[in-house]
C-alpha cells in the first residue's frame, strides 16, 4: 500500500463545508486510505458506488482496495497490463484533478484576476481553470465576486487555445452563454443539457481563429464523468453538476471566462485596477459628449478596429459625424469589466450606451476591448454586444 499512498501525495486534509458530493465522498475515501483505514475506505467507496453506479473512477479505487488485500499494489489503478493504458491514465488524471481541486480550493481572500466588475443584472460569473480541470462559480455579491461552487470539468482532447475548426481544443478567452438547449432536444451524448458559448468572439475573429460549437454540456447516461482531456473542445460536466449550474446561468448575460491557469489576486488590487479602468471609461464618455473629437479619439489605439473599420476610417467617420452635432449626451450604464486571460492587460468592457444628439438617438449594448498601452488605457475594439 505504500506506493499507493505515495501516488496520491498526502496534503493537509480539507474539511468539506458543503453537502457531500460524490467528489467529497471520493475524497473521504482517499482520506481513509491515507489514514491507513482500508476497511473504512472500502466501505466508503462501496457506498459511493451504490449511489453513483456509473462513477468509473470509484470502481478503479475499489479495485485497488480489494486487490491490496490480496497482494501488494504496484501503482494506483493496478490494472493488468493488457488493457489500454490510456484509459487508466485518464482515470488517474481525473483522480488527481479532483483531489487537487478539493485540497487546493482558493482561500477566501483570493479572487480570479479576471472579474473586475459585474453589472447588477449578472448574478454569476464562471471561471474555468483548464490546468486544474475546474470550473468556479462566482456569485455577484453587491458587485464583488464570491465563490459559491466549483466543479470538475472535462476539456478538449488536445488541450486549450483553440484556433482551428476540428482542432479538438478548448478556447481561452472571455465568453458568454448564448442559449439553453434542453435535454430533450439533444442526443444522450450531451447528457442533462447544453449551453453554447459565443466562440469565436470578436477577439477570436480578429485573431483569425475559427471553428464553432463550443458548449458547456453534460455526459452520456452510462458514465458519471469523463477524463480531464476527452472532449472535442467543449466544457463537460457531470450531469448533476450541469443541472445545478444550469439553474444559475442567464442566457446572454453570464460570462464564461476560460483561462489556462487562473491568476489570483486580492480584493484590494482588483479594486485598484477596476477604478483605473472605470476612470478611463468615464473620461471617454465625457470627451465624446464634449464633442472635442481629437480628445475623444485619443482614447483609441492605433491598432483599433471595429467590425468593419480600422483606426483611420473610424477617426475620419467620427470627425465627420461629430462636426454636424450641436449637442451630444452619452449615458453609460450596467457596466461589466472582465480581464481577458492570456492577453497582457486586455479587458472586455460591456455596457448599455444611451446616446442622444440633435439628429440621432439610440440605446445599444456595446462591447469594447480596452488595452493598457504605455501605462494608459486605450480602446482596441468597439462594436455592438
Amino acid at each position: 500500500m505504500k506506493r499507493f499512498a505515495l501516488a496520491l501525495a498526502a496534503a493537509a486534509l480539507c474539511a468539506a463545508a458543503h453537502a457531500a458530493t460524490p467528489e467529497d465522498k471520493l475524497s473521504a475515501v482517499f482520506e481513509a486510505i491515507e489514514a491507513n483505514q482500508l476497511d473504512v475506505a472500502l466501505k466508503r467507496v462501496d457506498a459511493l458506488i451504490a449511489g453513483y453506479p456509473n462513477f468509473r473512477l470509484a470502481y478503479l479505487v475499489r479495485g485497488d482496495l480489494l486487490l491490496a488485500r490480496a497482494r501488494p499494489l504496484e501503482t494506483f489503478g493496478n490494472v493488468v497490463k493488457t488493457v489500454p493504458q490510456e484509459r487508466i491514465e485518464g482515470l488517474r488524471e481525473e483522480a488527481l484533478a479532483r483531489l487537487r481541486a478539493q485540497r487546493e480550493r482558493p482561500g477566501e481572500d483570493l479572487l480570479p484576476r479576471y472579474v473586475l466588475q459585474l453589472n447588477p443584472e449578472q448574478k454569476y460569473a464562471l471561471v474555468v481553470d483548464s490546468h486544474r480541470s475546474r470550473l468556479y462559480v462566482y456569485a455577484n455579491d453587491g458587485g464583488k465576486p464570491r465563490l459559491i461552487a466549483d466543479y470538475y470539468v472535462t476539456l478538449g482532447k488536445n488541450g486549450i487555445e483553440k484556433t482551428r475548426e476540428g482542432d479538438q481544443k478548448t478556447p481561452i478567452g472571455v465568453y458568454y452563454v448564448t442559449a439553453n438547449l434542453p435535454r430533450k432536444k439533444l442526443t444522450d451524448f450531451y447528457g442533462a443539457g447544453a449551453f453554447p458559448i459565443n466562440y469565436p468572439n470578436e477577439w477570436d475573429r480578429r485573431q483569425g481563429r475559427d471553428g464553432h460549437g463550443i458548449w458547456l454540456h453534460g455526459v452520456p447516461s452510462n458514465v458519471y464523468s469523463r477524463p480531464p482531456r476527452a472532449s472535442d473542445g467543449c466544457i463537460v460536466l457531470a450531469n448533476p453538476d450541469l443541472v445545478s449550474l444550469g439553474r444559475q446561468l442567464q442566457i446572454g448575460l453570464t460570462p464564461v471566462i476560460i483561462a489556462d491557469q487562473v491568476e489570483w489576486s486580492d480584493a484590494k488590487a482588483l479594486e485598484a485596477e477596476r477604478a483605473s479602468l472605470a476612470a478611463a471609461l468615464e473620461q471617454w464618455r465625457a470627451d465624446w459628449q464634449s464633442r472635442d473629437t481629437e480628445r475623444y479619439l485619443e482614447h483609441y489605439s492605433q491598432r483599433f478596429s471595429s467590425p468593419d473599420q480600422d483606426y483611420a476610417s473610424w477617426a475620419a467617420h467620427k470627425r465627420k459625424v461629430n462636426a454636424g452635432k450641436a449637442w451630444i449626451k452619452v449615458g453609460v450604464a450596467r457596466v461589466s469589466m472582465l480581464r481577458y486571460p492570456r492577453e497582457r492587460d486586455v479587458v472586455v468592457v460591456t455596457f448599455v450606451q444611451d446616446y442622444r444628439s440633435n439628429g440621432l438617438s439610440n440605446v445599444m449594448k456595446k462591447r469594447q476591448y480596452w488595452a493598457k498601452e504605455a501605462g494608459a488605457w486605450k480602446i482596441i475594439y468597439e462594436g455592438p454586444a
Partner: protein
Amino acid sequence: MQNLNAPREWLRGSAILAFAFILGAASVARADDLQEAQQLFKSGQTQQALERVNRALAANPREPQARFLKGLIYTEQGKQQEATEIFTKLTQDYPNLPEPYNNLAVIYASQGQYDKARTALEQSIRTHPSYATAYENLGDVYAKLASQAYGKALQLDASNSGAQNKLSLVRELVREPAQKPVAAAPVAKESAPKEPAPAAKEPPAQVAAAAPKAPEKPAAEGNAEVLQAVNGWAEAWAKQDVDAYLGHYAKDFKTPGGEPREAWEKTRRERISAAKSIQVAIDSPKVTMRSPDQASVSFRQTYQSDKLKSQNRKTLELVKADGQWLIREEKAGK
C-alpha cells in the same frame, strides 16, 4: 483463482477430521458406511460414495459429517445447487463451523458470484479467525472482485471475461480431484485421532461447544433477529425518523425503479417528511431463512397517513451485514 482448489484438498482432509472430533461416538453402526463413503469418494467413485452416504443419513439424517461429505460429492458431480443447499443448511445448523462457509464460497466463486463468496469467506473467518484456507481463498476472491471493479472502471466487457473465468474454473474443479485426493487423504487419516491438522488446531474445542445446540436454535435466533429488524424498520417509518428508516436498507439495495440510491433516498425523505402522521402495521409475518445471512420476510402491511391508506402484501429480502439485518429488496405482493 488457483487457490480456490486448495480448500478442496483441505475439505477432504481436515474438515472431516474436525467433525470426527465432535462426533466421536455419534453412530457407531453407521460409521462403517461413512468411512466407506469417504474411501470411495477419495478414489473418485462418487456415485457409490453417494449411495453409502445416503445409507448413513437414512439412519441419522442430521449427522453433519455425512451431510458434509454429501455436499462434497455433489460438488464433485457438478450438482452445485444441491451442494449449495447442503452447505447452506450446515451453516445454519452449525453457524460456528468455518468449513461449510468456505465450501459455499468456493461454489459461489466458481459461479462468478464473488460478492457472495466474499461474504461467506468473511463469515468463515469470523467464526475462526485463524482459518488459513479461508484467508487464502478470500485473497483470491478480493483479486477477482478487484478485476471486476477495474473492468467497470474501464468499461471493459466484464460479462465476457466473467464467463471465461467460470469455464476455466469448472474445468479445474473437475480435473483436480483425480490427482489430489490420494495425496491429501493419508495426511488427514494419520493425524486424525491425536493431532489435528494445522488449520484445525484451534477449532475442535469451539466446534465441540457449538455442536450440541446445533440444529433448530440458530435458525430460530435468525428468525427473531430478522423480525426485530423488520419491526424496527416499520417503527422508524411510522415515527418518520427518516435517517433510522433509511438505515434499514442495505448499501446494495435494489431501488424499485432502478434509480440511483441518492435519488431514491431523496424521494423517500421528502415523502416521509411530508406526511403529518404515519401509521404502519405488520401482520402475520413469515420469515424464510435463505442462508444464515439472507432472509425473506412476507407480511401484510397496513399503511395509513393523513393522505393515504393502503393495505397490501409485501416481501422484504434482507441480508445480514456486520451483524445487522438490512433490506436489499422490497417487493409488493407475495
